[in-house]
């Protein structure tokens, strides 16, 4: 699946599906469902955070 479409949209679709699972899971049950929800919502956020924060250079001066 190395098409240009998947290169562009593969990750956004994956993260969207994860977020959807996270939003619904905790609605349907407690306990393990809440844990699934935390991971499914947390992964996209963590990925966003990681990409946002890497590459910033502290000013050498």
């Amino acid at each position, binding site marked *: 699946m190395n098409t*240009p479409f998947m*290169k*562009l*949209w*593969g*990750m*956004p679709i994956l*993260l*969207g599906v994860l*977020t*959807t699972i996270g*939003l619904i*899971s*905790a*609605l*349907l*049950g*407690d306990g393990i*469902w*809440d*844990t699934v*929800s*935390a991971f499914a*919502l*947390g992964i*996209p*956020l963590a*990925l*966003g*955070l*990681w*990409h*946002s924060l*890497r*590459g*910033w*250079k502290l000013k050498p001066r």
Partner: protein
Amino acid sequence: MSSHSLRRWSWIHKWSSLVCTVFMLLLCLTGLPLIYHHEIGHLLGNDVEAPALSPELAAKPPRANIDEVIASARALYPNKLTMYISQEIDEPAIWNVTLGDTPNDEHYKPIAVDARTAKVIVEPAFEGGAFMSTMFRLHVDLFAGLPGKLFLGFMGLLLLVAIVSGVVLYAPFMRKLDFGTVRHGRTQRLKWLDLHNLLGIVTLVWALVVGATGMVNTWADVLLKYWQATEIADMLAPYKGAPPPARLASMDAAVKLAERVSPGMQVGFVAFPGTPFASPHHYGVYMRGNEAFSSRLYKPVLIDAQTGAITDQRELPWYLTALLISQPLHFGDYGGGWMKLLWALLDVATIVVLGSGLYLWVQRGRAVKRHAQAAAQQGTGISQAAPVLARSGERR
């Protein structure tokens, strides 16, 4: 994408976001403390806790007569009416009694009564105290009642348009880049454009859901009015011309009756005659299930407020069910502490998306102006001055 349709989507994205950004920033900022309203209430000493009972009572907590519970609360304000009584699902030891001068009193008095002893626990701070109340009002209706709510709902709609158009624009900007690329070391503008795209696409589904459910919540009053005008009005037909109930039937008996006809459910709240959730002649007893999902849905049992007999029990119409389901999805209060934290972090990420979007627009305005000035000095006019949206600073 043709440059024509790119230009059109850019226009839609620019204007839908520009109009709603200031309000969305306000909603994100005021929403942050609302996620943690329980914890903040605890810190401020505004939360209500049921007093500990003696060990022998605590082993098998008694259930006080609900009529006595209401009487205790009304003893504090003998001239006020009862509007609602309610119980939180995880705190069966407390009845929250709401009193007001009229069935629609906005300046109602909340009173917490011990559900085991019928003794008043405390009169909690109105809407959680001055700070939380201010946050709440700014978030819900800008202190402007129903028009304020509907206005914010419209801003929510613009946010949804901005999100969808933003996704469309994601493609032309990211086509040549790997997911997550942030181009440091070129222009500031390019870096923030990449961050805007990255955080925007990462928070996409969450922002879409929280935006849409927030918009649905702004219609709550309207949906209730519609329900009153249709289904409740049907139920009221036999009461046409009847005077309002002179004496109210026992609430304790009404609740027990509702529990008997709704096995496996418990009382969420009871609306008294004249409030939006009841009718002038009925108690609305709202039963809920006790599992994660069913506890979010209510089944109304309507009880004649004079005779205490059941008039009707029916399912909520689909639009009120949709409203009830949209509430947890907006509040993020259904998945414990981790979910609250994620809700707060996603909220902060959204603030960065909004802020960077605003920055990109301001920068672009400056770039166009500089370009126009340079062009004017050369006498060439500005017809070439405005490449589509955010392309300036991007060398291709």
